[in-house]
């Protein structure tokens, strides 16, 4: 049965909303397949505004892979802004895909990619606008399977009631596998309805179906046990790892939006995973092991992507791009290839060493040496040891002054506030560091025309990291330290004017902390926030701390218990049944090492430090060097 486009109904609303172009689709390289040509249909959602969601690599890759699959189609949907939401409600227009403007409820699977927990309320808006019951238990056979992925899906417990299923890790192969399970089940005439489909997915061990697991609690509120409530459902669900990135060179046909988006460039992941071992970094822990894309594939993907998109910027993405074993060759090869073409290259990397500056110099050959970013993360040497970010003050100052001496005028330094064991002086150390950087920079350049911007993020303990047991700092403490830091910077007559300071207040981090380490009981808070109008929580102009706190109180949830409480070693954590491959004992030991100031080397270069990922997942580190060069330049 053909599903009709709702575009004509949407079209009448578009003249009344801001930036209507974001809702009309029609991007270059987007795909609209005939509805009846497919028997498995995915709606892929990035639960934020189009301008943020469109550049998301995860959604773009799955969109392309699924559409390449015969008999499968995939379309995209994004969070609509409140102005359109109000009009859609008034006119009864459902949540739609931007590709063919089909109603989301008509699809078999609604896949939602969560980079951050702050998209949870937007998912509820989309479900509600789609006419899909918010609670999974209320859904019928005509509703799509609501499936979460992305980094936040490594603890989907706070949204467990709203999800039918969740997938951990790389999506490429599992999305195809899920499509096949759905196809088979539909071809057989949907035996056993929705429940059997979910059973088939759960049995594989690669898809988490929350309703097949019961959570029991101790009287004091801690979790007693998480156990399957059916036979044939595994006790633990494992993450997925794509081992050979050269076999998956996506995106091949990059989506080129008409609307303005947050990243206007063609991005290539040059590797996945990171083994630097920064203890606060969830991404580094859950994406192990390191898997590099080869220099030749990178070269081919960049060439193809620039040609297909017309973008004039190329971004080489990863968690620490300067760590690619052949990054020097990659940088030089691309800089040679695109010299004089007005195609710029960017390398979001935060390594604090001279090599990083060499790379940055290569990438800015003909351009302006404007800003360079380093991330020492901790303000004092002691703090950096706790988080395992092994940078000495001497290293940092030497690196930054080298950058100034080579023509870079502006250096940005990233830090976190609220780290475990942090004291006031650790944060004030950031001011000392910044002043020393400016002092040394002025000496070496003989100029006062240099700047340093200090940018601070609030630390939130994340699941599957050594800090998963840590107490989160309360927002009063964070705000007090940030204020002291600000005063120290602003009050400095000699250097204050050369130092910029960017920070946010500590309260949003508390909500993020609640959602990051929450369990199923937190779902009631999310729902209450959404019901009282909570939307776009990642946007400071929409976020309301008061709304979250009121909702928590209404739901009987003690926010402090979830955030500022330190956990014991043997406490069952809400995500313990979800396997990111990390050995729990190793994580605990690393947490203890952190408290005693011990360091861990990077296993990319040094022997294995037993985090447990490779043996339990059957994976291994995939790095070069291959010794090959970029493909020869094709003359455009």
């Amino acid at each position, binding site marked *: 049965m053909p599903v009709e486009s709702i*575009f004509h109904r949407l079209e009448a609303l578009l003249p009344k909303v801001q930036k*209507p172009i974001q809702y*009309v689709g*029609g991007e*270059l390289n987007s795909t609209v397949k005939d509805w009846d040509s497919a028997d498995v249909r995915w709606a892929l959602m990035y639960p934020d505004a189009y301008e943020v969601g469109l550049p998301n690599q995860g959604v773009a890759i799955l969109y392309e892979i699924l559409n390449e699959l015969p008999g499968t189609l995939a379309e995209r949907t994004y969070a609509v802004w409140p102005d359109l939401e109000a009009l859609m409600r008034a006119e009864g227009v459902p949540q739609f895909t931007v590709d063919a403007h089909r109603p989301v409820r008509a699809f078999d699977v609604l896949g939602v990619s969560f980079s951050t927990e702050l998209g949870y309320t937007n998912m509820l808006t989309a479900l509600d606008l789609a006419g899909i019951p918010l609670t999974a238990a209320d859904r019928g056979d005509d509703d799509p399977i609501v499936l979460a992925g992305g980094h936040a899906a490594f603890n989907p417990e706070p949204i467990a009631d709203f999800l039918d299923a969740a997938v951990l890790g790389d999506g490429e192969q599992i999305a195809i596998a899920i499509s096949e399970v759905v196809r088979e089940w539909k071809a057989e005439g949907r035996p056993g309805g929705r429940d059997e489909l979910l059973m088939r997915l759960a049995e594989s061990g690669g898809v988490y179906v929350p309703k097949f697991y019961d959570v029991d609690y101790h009287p004091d509120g801690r979790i007693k046990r998480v156990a399957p409530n059916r036979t044939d459902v595994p006790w633990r669900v494992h993450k997925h790892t794509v081992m050979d990135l050269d076999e998956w060179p996506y995106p091949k046909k990059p989506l080129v939006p008409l609307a303005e988006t947050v990243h206007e460039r063609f991005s290539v992941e040059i590797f996945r995973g990171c083994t630097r071992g920064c203890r606060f970094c969830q991404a580094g822990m859950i994406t192990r092991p390191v898997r590099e894309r080869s220099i030749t594939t990178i070269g081919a993907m960049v060439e193809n992507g620039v040609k297909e998109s017309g973008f004039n910027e190329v971004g080489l993405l990863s968690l620490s791009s300067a760590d690619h074993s052949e990054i020097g060759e990659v940088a030089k090869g691309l800089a040679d290839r695109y010299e004089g073409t007005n195609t710029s290259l960017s390398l979001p990397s935060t390594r604090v060493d001279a090599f990083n500056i060499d790379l940055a110099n290569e990438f800015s050959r003909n351009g302006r040496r404007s800003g360079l970013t380093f991330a020492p993360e901790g303000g004092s040497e002691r703090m950096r040891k706790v988080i395992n970010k092994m940078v000495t003050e001497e290293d940092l100052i030497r690196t930054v002054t080298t950058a100034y001496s080579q023509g870079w005028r502006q250096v940005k330094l990233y830090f976190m506030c609220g780290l475990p064991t942090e004291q006031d002086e650790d944060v004030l150390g950031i001011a000392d560091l910044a002043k020393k950087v400016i002092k040394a920079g002025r000496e070496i350049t003989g100029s006062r025309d240099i700047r340093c911007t200090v940018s601070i993020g609030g630390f939130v303990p994340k699941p599957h990291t050594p800090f998963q047991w840590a107490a989160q700092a309360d927002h009063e403490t964070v705000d007090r330290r940030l204020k002291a830091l600000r005063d120290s910077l602003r009050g400095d007559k000699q250097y204050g004017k050369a130092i910029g300071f960017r920070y946010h207040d500590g309260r949003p981090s508390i909500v993020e902390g609640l959602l990051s380490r929450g369990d199923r009981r937190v779902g009631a808070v999310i729902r209450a926030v959404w019901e009282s109008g909570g939307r776009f929580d990642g946007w400071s102009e929409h976020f309301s701390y008061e709304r979250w706190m009121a909702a928590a109180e209404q739901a009987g949830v003690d926010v402090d218990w979830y955030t500022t409480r330190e956990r014991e070693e043997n406490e069952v954590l809400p995500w313990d049944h979800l396997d990111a491959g990390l050995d729990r004992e190793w994580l605990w030991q690393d947490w203890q090492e952190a408290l005693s100031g011990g360091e861990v080397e990077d296993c990319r270069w040094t022997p294995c430090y037993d985090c447990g990922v490779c043996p339990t997942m059957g994976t291994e580190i995939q790095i070069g060097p291959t010794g090959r060069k970029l493909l020869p330049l094709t003359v455009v």
Partner: protein
Amino acid sequence: MQRLRVRYAKRGRLRFTSHRDISRAVERAVRRAGIPVAYSAGFSPHPKISYAGAAPTGVASEAEYLELGVTTPCVPDEVKSGLDRSLPPGLDVLDVVEAGPGGLADRLEVSDWEVRLPGADRELAQVAAEKFLAASTVDVERLTKKGPRRFDAREAVLRLVVSEGTDRTAAQVHGRPCVILRMVVRHMTPAVRPDDVLTGLRLVADFAPPVPPEVTRLAQGPLDASTGALADPLDLDRDTTRGGEAGPAGEHVAG
């Protein structure tokens, strides 16, 4: 430096592109098509593409114009097909000519607009149009970035005709009946746009369409004073370049 003048359309759902959206799309399309566009000098070089009189967001157009500087001479027809292929469907290249003497913007004196009003009453529209044309001035107010601005919407309107047709966008197949306003409007400062004329119709005769209008610019160009007709602004370029009398490169300043 050779300069090319391009007429393009924004159609259907792509009428919701803003001017900035279009300029990004064109820059990328030029790169994809491999057109040797010239760049400005300096730290952040920009492609030399300039736009004349862009239609507002939400308004479709069959007659948008841009001018493009290229570093090596190009065959206009090849640029036309290459650029059209590289732009998303809905941004369609209709005509490319090599620029002759004179600024393009100066030639865009008037616009011919079609305004479709689904569900509007034909009789009321007719009465409103007559009242509007009979008035010597019709002061309207529009909210601009600098706040509300008051100006006369009547003087710029050279022609205003009411007819009937179907609403094309609801579905290409079965359109609903709608009232069609055709208006020829002179470009002035401040610009009088079709929605300003609609505001005027509401003021003079309380005529208010039930749903947002669908507006399309059909043409823009010089006004032939004797016939009152609208000429193709690129004809002048065609005349000079056909005769092989194109001026030396870089002599003209774009309007």
